[in-house]
Every structure is written in structure tokens, then in C-alpha cells.
């Protein structure tokens, strides 16, 4: 009897700890009161509505979207050929290449942000937007390489070798044989990169200027000054967005196969 109760009790407690706080944020964002509190005082949609009217949130949302989409696409443009070279070619210095593209996962983001600020933004005059773009691209690169490499490893290489033997050019074989077969992996890498980039804080801490900052950094700044439920509302909205994307990806792609 005690054994049969063990699993449900443990799992209930752990889930309350892991997911409970998220429900509190959701509940707090429907509050009618003026300060963040739980249980919420009354019910209203005013904080959720307010999120859309705060100018800085709209700006930083656009910045974060641009970084997450543009950065991830760029990382894929760099990462797919590199993964292909590492899995299908006798690549000289392949360990060095592998190490270089995986460093962004090992080095804490805050250090990268600071290094870019100190050596590119201040002395060279690189714009904050461009520095953010480079940092977010580099950050996503290891994920892109890892996920794409995994799907290349699952694809038998004799398929494109056969295509080449049958007279296709190497490039043609890549676009007609390889690419259609790793489409799922590329989409999975895109989603993983998007979520990672969008939620990223440390790398962008030092990279913010007038009118240019990412959404999470903007939220951190806002909550230091104002203690109303609008950050809760925004957090809840963003969480639903992430969960929605991942859920859809899992449903239609079997996302978890690739990650």
C-alpha cells in the first residue's frame, strides 16, 4: 500500500514545486488590484491589456523577435554546412571546428556580453543592435550544430553517395536528397534556438542602449521600478506562447525525437 502511494505523492509534490509558481503568475495577472499579490484581488483583464500598451514592451518585444528569428536563421545558415562537413567529409582540424562552434554553450553568457561591449561596442563603435545580433547568433550556433548533426547521423550517407554516382552534382545531392530528409531536424533546431534566444538574459545584460534592449532585460528593469501585475501578465503571455510553440512542434513533428 505504501508503495502504491509513493509515486503519486512524490510526483504531486514535485509538480507543485515545479509548475505551481507558474499558475500563481497566471492567477496574479488576472488581478484587479494594483500590486502583485496572491490570492489575486478581484478579477480583471486590465493588466493583460496594459502589457500591450506599454511602449517599451512593444519595442523590446520587436527586438527580441528579430534576434530570435534572425539570429537562429543565421546560426542555421552557418551551422548546417558546418554540420554537413563534420559528418560527411574528412575534415581537417575537425576537433578544432567542433570545439569552436560549441564554445558558446560553455562560456557563461554574461562574459560574452561584457567582452563584446568592451572590445567591439566601445572601441570600434559597433552598434548595440548588431552586437546583440552577433551574440544571439553565436549563442544559438551550438544548438543548431548539435540538432542538425544528430539528424545527419540518422540519415544514411550512401543515399547522397548514390545520387552523386548517378550523376547529380554534390550540391544537387545536398538540396535534393539530404535537405528534404533532415527538414524535421532543422525545424526542431529552429524552435530550440528560437526559445533559447528569446528567453536569454545574461548575454544581453551589458548590451542595452537607448531604445534597444531585449524583452527579458526590459522586464527585469521594469520590475525594479514598478511592482504592478503587468510583468506577471507579460510572463504568463510569453509562457503560453513558448508552450504553444513547443506543443505544436511536438504534436506535428515529434520534436522530442530531435532534441
Amino acid at each position, binding site marked *: 500500500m505504501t508503495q502504491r502511494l*509513493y*509515486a503519486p505523492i*512524490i*510526483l504531486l509534490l*514535485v*509538480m507543485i*514545486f*515545479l*509548475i505551481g*509558481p*507558474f499558475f*500563481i*503568475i497566471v492567477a496574479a495577472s488576472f488581478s484587479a488590484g494594483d500590486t502583485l499579490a*496572491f490570492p489575486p484581488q478581484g478579477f480583471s483583464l486590465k493588466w493583460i491589456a496594459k502589457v500591450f500598451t506599454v511602449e517599451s514592451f512593444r519595442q523590446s518585444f520587436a527586438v527580441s523577435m528579430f534576434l530570435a528569428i534572425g539570429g537562429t536563421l543565421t546560426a542555421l545558415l*552557418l551551422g548546417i*554546412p*558546418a554540420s*554537413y*562537413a*563534420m559528418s*560527411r*567529409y*574528412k*575534415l*581537417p582540424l575537425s576537433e578544432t*571546428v567542433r570545439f*569552436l*562552434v560549441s*564554445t*558558446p554553450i*560553455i562560456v*557563461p553568457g*554574461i*562574459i*560574452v556580453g*561584457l*567582452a*563584446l561591449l*568592451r*572590445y*567591439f561596442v566601445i572601441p570600434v563603435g559597433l552598434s548595440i543592435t548588431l552586437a546583440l545580433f552577433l*551574440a544571439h547568433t*553565436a549563442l544559438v*550556433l551550438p544548438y543548431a*550544430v548539435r540538432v542538425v548533426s544528430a539528424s545527419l547521423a540518422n540519415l544514411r550517407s550512401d543515399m547522397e553517395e548514390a545520387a552523386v554516382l548517378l550523376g547529380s552534382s*554534390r550540391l544537387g545531392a545536398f538540396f535534393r536528397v539530404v535537405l528534404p530528409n533532415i527538414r524535421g531536424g532543422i525545424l526542431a533546431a529552429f524552435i530550440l534556438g528560437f*526559445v533559447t534566444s528569446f*528567453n536569454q*538574459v*545574461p548575454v544581453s*545584460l*551589458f548590451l542595452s542602449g537607448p531604445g534597444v534592449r531585449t524583452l527579458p532585460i526590459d522586464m*527585469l528593469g521594469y520590475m525594479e521600478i514598478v511592482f504592478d501585475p503587468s*510583468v506577471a501578465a507579460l*510572463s504568463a503571455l*510569453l*509562457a503560453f506562447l*513558448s*508552450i504553444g510553440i*513547443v506543443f505544436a512542434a511536438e504534436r506535428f513533428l515529434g520534436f522530442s525525437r530531435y532534441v
Partner: protein
Amino acid sequence: MFQNRTEALALALPAAVFAALVFVVPVVLLLSEGFKSADQWTLSAYVDFFSQSLNRTVFLRTLKLGALVTLAAAVIGYATAYAIVSLPPGAKGKMIGLVVLPLMISPVARTYAWIVILGRTGIVNQALMAVGLTDEPFRILFTETAVFIGLLQLFLPLMVISLISALENLPRDAVPAARVLGANWFQVFWKVILPLTREGLVVGGTLVFTGSMTAYITPAILGGSKVLMLETLLYQQVTVANNFVSASVIAFILIVMSFAANILLKRIATARNRT
């Protein structure tokens, strides 16, 4: 396997050069600042850094919180992973989904929730006062306890996932066999489960430990300037004190620990592939 080296390099170089230019070069330059004084190589910045008691406190606190979070995550992680692995397949998949779900939510949102829970008028204090355990609200926010709770919630999923895959490779009969032979649950864990899942524990432990050591948001929101950790100290050194040398020292410490953890992980991965 294609043999053309030029083609291979042409494919791989853009990514490698990009990572080197955007990442490796500036970071190495930053780190070198901590070893230089008036164009001479020296360790004086490190001596200076550790001679200040605040810095020592922050350094030790970061190690301590990292270790405590890892330990707690291991204990809770085993209990959770064992419970999940014993579920029927359908329920198991759903539970794993629920464990992974928080990883998709912004850490800012996840940490922010704890303000509502742990604050002066938060749920915990409301409950304690309602039960009559205390008349004055406890101060939980801006203490090490708050940072500990926040970090544990943030990184526990990584431990659970690592342990689930380790436990799934446990031979099916190992635990029942040990029970039949008279081992109690403590002995079963210590003599059977732990040795057979050590790899998963090390993988999860490394992820949790490095994650906690290099966390910024949790100590920033739940610890504030009262409970500084290395990353929040680094931020303060740059923005408040404008001290890049000290920031470089902290950066080096963080990178060394991060690399050490990664090398350990890679060793374990390759050792597993060989067997």
C-alpha cells in the same frame, strides 16, 4: 565519406571563423586583462580580488549554493525519477513532458513567481500567520534560502531528466532481486541503484552545478545586493564600480569552472561509448 578537403573547409570555416571572432577572441582578450598590469603578466589582480572579504564571501557562497542545490536536486531527483520510471508508458511520457515544460518558460517569469510566494505578504507568510506559527512575517526574500529555492526550481528538471535515462537502463530485476535477498530500501539505493546510475547522476549534477554557479537572474531577483553571487557581483563590478579587472577575474573563475565541468561530462560520455 567525401574526400575533398577544400570543399569540407569551405563548408565548415564560416561557422568556425564566426565563433572565433565573435566569441573566442573577445573573451580571451577580456580574460587577459586580469593577468596584466602595466603590460606585465602578473597574478596581482587575483591576489587583490581574494584579499577582499566581500569577494571571498561571494565566491564561497556561490560554491556553497551550487553544492547545496546540486545535493538537493540529486535527492529529490532520484525520488522523482524513480517514481516516473515506474509509471505505465503513457503516463510516463506525460510526466516527462510536465518536467520539461518549465524549461521552456522564461527564467525571468519563473523566478518572478517566487516574489509572490516568498515575499513579506506572500503565500508562505500568509499561511504561517494564519496557522499562528508567527505574528511577524518572516523575511525570506533576499536571503540565501530564497536564492536556493529559486535555483532548485530552475535546475531540478535537468537532474530529473538525466536520472530518468539512467534509471531506464537499470536492469529490470536488479531492485526486486536485492529486495528478495533481504536488502532494505536504504541498502537497495546505496548498493544497487546508486552504483548503476552514477553516470546519470554525474551528468545531471554537472548541469545543475554549473547552471547554479553561473546563474544571474535568480540571485539578481531573489537575492538582490544582499545575497550576491559571482555573476551578480560581476555585473555590479562593471556597472557600479567600473572595475573591469575585477570583472575579468570573476569571468576567469566562472569559465574555469564551466570548462572543468564540461571536460568531466565529455570524459563520462566517451567512457560510456567505449563500454
